[in-house]
């Protein structure tokens, strides 16, 4: 594994946005091209919608690359668009040469996209582009067959004006084929038109072609919308109305072929001769690609093996530990009047060392940072595939893909995030009928949003689905003995039950949601990286899963506390506040110790008992460290607060390895090991204990 680091981050951010959208477009184009090739192989007429979509894709590529000043790529896309334009306008037939040129252009564009920002590579590729463009230009251009006055049509001028050039071409083409042209008018409620409109459009496509869809104000303009569908078909007006199950009055004739005119399918003008001598485009291009890849990189980027970065991080970690040891020696020296001078000198050196280590640590951490983009793109691909496989209309919206996290965390995030997104896809978002009934757009939406907040990164996955049925969830949890029926739970606490191990509100398990991997595993995985998962849901409106993660795992700020001479490090990102607690303030209720914290009951947990460190004298003063996980708060009772410390977490070996509640260990040079608390697990266990009553 290797990471890549760029100095020109602002520029690369804009570039990577461009790259990711272009990649998506190219993927769609490859799919469409292969369908087009299939149609050609089976001697079918190319589907006009397919060709038009390809044209739109090339058009977008042209616009995007032009926008970012990639002139050569824009020029290439422009010619690609040109080929597709001639095809969709019916000026040329789809022969093997056209297919070859399309394939070649898409492949070359993809190769250049990989090298975006590498100007040398772009310059080198210019030659390949020029030769490809020359071949496209050579490709003979037949004169346009478009003719015929559209002015003679009995049609609303507004509709005619709103036709794009392509739609005009399709209109002429259908007239040339002597099909009848109609306008079909339909009214819908504005909030739910899409389903009905799709139904009518699909029905028209069974017997003809939809040339244009013009919206206009409906009978009651505030709440309704009218669509006029310009339609070409062999059917007569009654036949069409009957097929669409519409009253004949909603279909108007625009144009009919002269009597005796024979309706016919378009035929290629001449039988196509397979050109055997055409070089295989892929082979042709592989040379060019080799050429591009062999270029020497003179960019300001180096590739570094991630293991080397781990080593470097470990060394920095050791330095941090030694620095802490020096600090404590300096403190001890300063505390003794006999050595106070040497102590303060050591302290000065220590301060300077601290700053240098801080700088080193920041630099190393920064090198390890990678943007979330790769993970997000992976999810986008999965959603696209699911959309095809499941025939569910759901789009994934992404923002904040440039947010950076430690590479290890990004890797650990893939599975939990995938699970959350798949859950949303499979279970949260309703089917078409249910969405229509709820007045929702047919297309569901999953939003993936990452933002950086201080030393944390927050990733929210929200959907506009049915939301969590809190009542069913609660009942299910009682049924399975996860909570007792007597326990009063707040709506937050009920929602939080989705993270309870083994709980599911759906009986069936689909392949997508993954057997056995529930939200409890998501929470455990995220907790293992020092993060939290929260859930928020509104019935009928949707669910948001929020994942909060530290930017880096390697070094975290901790609060050091001790109980019975055992020291613990509590990650500072989960600490809300610390309180000095007088034993008299602790109240008991339902077997629980509670503290009245500004009018709210704060459940307490003695760290001594949690880890069986023996009984503490009950009358001594204690500190409560208030920690939170999501909305759950817990006061951890400890005996001493020892201050904040940079903590390097190391995995524990030996018997203590899998102790629940312990995330790892750290050491402070001279003073032995300190256990790092897994706050998420401690709070979860405490809350569960409380719920089970």
């Amino acid at each position: 594994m290797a990471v890549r680091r760029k100095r020109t981050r602002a520029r690369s951010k804009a570039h990577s946005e461009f790259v990711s959208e272009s990649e998506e477009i190219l993927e769609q184009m490859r799919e469409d091209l292969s369908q087009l090739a299939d149609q050609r192989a089976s001697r079918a007429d190319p589907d006009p919608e397919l060709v038009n979509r390809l044209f739109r894709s090339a058009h977008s590529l042209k616009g995007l690359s032009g926008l970012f000043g990639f002139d050569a790529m824009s020029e290439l896309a422009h010619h690609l668009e040109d080929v597709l334009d001639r095809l969709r306008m019916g000026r040329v037939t789809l022969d093997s040469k056209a297919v070859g040129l399309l394939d070649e252009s898409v492949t070359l564009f993809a190769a250049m996209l990989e090298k975006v920002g590498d100007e040398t590579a772009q310059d080198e590729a210019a030659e390949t582009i020029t030769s490809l463009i020359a071949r496209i230009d050579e490709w003979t251009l037949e004169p346009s067959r478009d003719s015929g006055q559209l002015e003679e049509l009995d049609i609303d001028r507004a509709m005619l004006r709103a036709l794009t050039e392509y739609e005009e071409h399709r209109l002429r083409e259908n007239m040339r084929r002597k099909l009848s042209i109609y306008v079909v008018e339909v009214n819908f409620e504005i909030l739910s038109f899409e389903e009905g409109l799709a139904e009518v459009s699909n029905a028209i496509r069974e017997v003809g072609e939809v040339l244009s869809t013009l919206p206009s104000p409906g009978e009651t303009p505030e709440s309704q919308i009218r669509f006029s569908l310009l339609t070409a078909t062999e059917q007569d007006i009654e036949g069409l109305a009957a097929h669409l199950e519409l009253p004949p009055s909603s279909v108007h004739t625009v144009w009919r072929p002269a009597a005796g005119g024979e309706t016919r399918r378009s035929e290629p003008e001449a039988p196509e001769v397979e050109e055997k001598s055409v070089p295989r485009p892929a082979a042709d291009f592989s040379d060019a690609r080799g050429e591009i890849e062999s270029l020497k990189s003179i960019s300001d980027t180096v590739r570094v093996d991630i293991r080397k970065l781990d080593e470097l991080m470990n060394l920095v970690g050791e330095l941090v530990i030694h620095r802490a040891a020096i600090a404590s020696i300096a403190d001890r020296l300063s505390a003794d009047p006999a050595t106070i001078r040497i102590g303060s000198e050591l302290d000065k050196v220590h301060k300077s060392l601290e700053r240098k280590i801080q700088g080193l640590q920041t630099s190393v951490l920064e090198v390890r940072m990678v943007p979330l983009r790769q993970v997000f793109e992976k999810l986008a691909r999965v959603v696209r595939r699911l959309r095809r496989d499941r025939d569910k209309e759901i789009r994934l919206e992404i923002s904040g893909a440039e947010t950076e996290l430690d590479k290890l965390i990004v890797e650990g995030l893939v599975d939990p995030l995938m699970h959350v997104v798949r859950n949303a896809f499979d279970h949260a978002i309703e089917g078409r009928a249910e969405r229509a009934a709820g007045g929702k757009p047919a297309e569901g939406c999953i939003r993936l949003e990452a933002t950086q907040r201080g030393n944390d990164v927050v990733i929210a996955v929200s959907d506009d689905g049915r939301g969590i049925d809190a009542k069913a969830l609660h009942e299910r949890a009682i049924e399975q003995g996860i909570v007792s029926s007597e326990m009063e739970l707040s709506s937050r606490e009920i929602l939080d039950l989705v993270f309870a191990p083994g709980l599911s509100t759906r009986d069936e398990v689909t392949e997508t949601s993954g057997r056995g991997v529930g939200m409890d595993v998501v929470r455990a995985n995220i907790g293992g990286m020092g993060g939290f998962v929260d859930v928020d849901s509104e019935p009928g409106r949707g669910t948001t899963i929020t994942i909060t993660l530290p930017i880096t795992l390697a070094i975290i700020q901790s609060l050091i506390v001790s109980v019975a001479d055992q020291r613990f490090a509590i990650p500072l990102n989960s600490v809300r506040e610390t309180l000095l607690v007088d034993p008299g303030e602790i109240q008991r209720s339902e077997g629980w110790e509670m503290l009245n914290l500004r009018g709210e009951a704060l459940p307490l947990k003695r760290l001594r008992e949690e880890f069986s460190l023996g009984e503490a004298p009950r009358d001594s003063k204690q500190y409560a460290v208030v920690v939170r996980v999501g909305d759950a708060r817990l006061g951890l009772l400890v005996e001493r607060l020892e201050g904040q410390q940079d903590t390097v977490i190391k995995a524990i070996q030996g018997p203590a390895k899998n102790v629940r509640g312990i995330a790892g260990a750290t050491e402070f040079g001279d003073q032995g090991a300190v256990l790092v608390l897994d706050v998420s697990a401690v709070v979860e266990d405490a809350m569960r204990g409380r719920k089970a009553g």
Partner: protein
Amino acid sequence: MQSVLVVEDSATMRSLIASTLEQMGVPLKITEAPSGFEALRLLPRESYDLIVTDINMPDINGLELVSFVKSNEAYRSIPLIIVSTESSDRDREKGLSLGADAYLVKPFDPDDLLQMARDLLPSPQQGG
């Protein structure tokens, strides 16, 4: 606060238009619609002061959207800018004859879009 609807199927282009408009120097609420259909759904929900739309989109094209806006009593007065890669005079003429107020060819100069938006947005001081 004035409100702008940006209709564009390309996410990159959409955020570019939005971030350009954010440089206006006046507080703007920018709503992004990834398709013509989405724009049709958004229109009744809020009173927009400006619409910026692309032409080539998958469901309904930008010209059809312009036609809808300009044929609807409730939306007719909303100024409308077309931002499109179509540079032919025919498309520009079509757009303008349907009632679009301005036509900008992609890739565009951000200053041009800002100037157009400034010219078309009703001045808040005059209570427009």
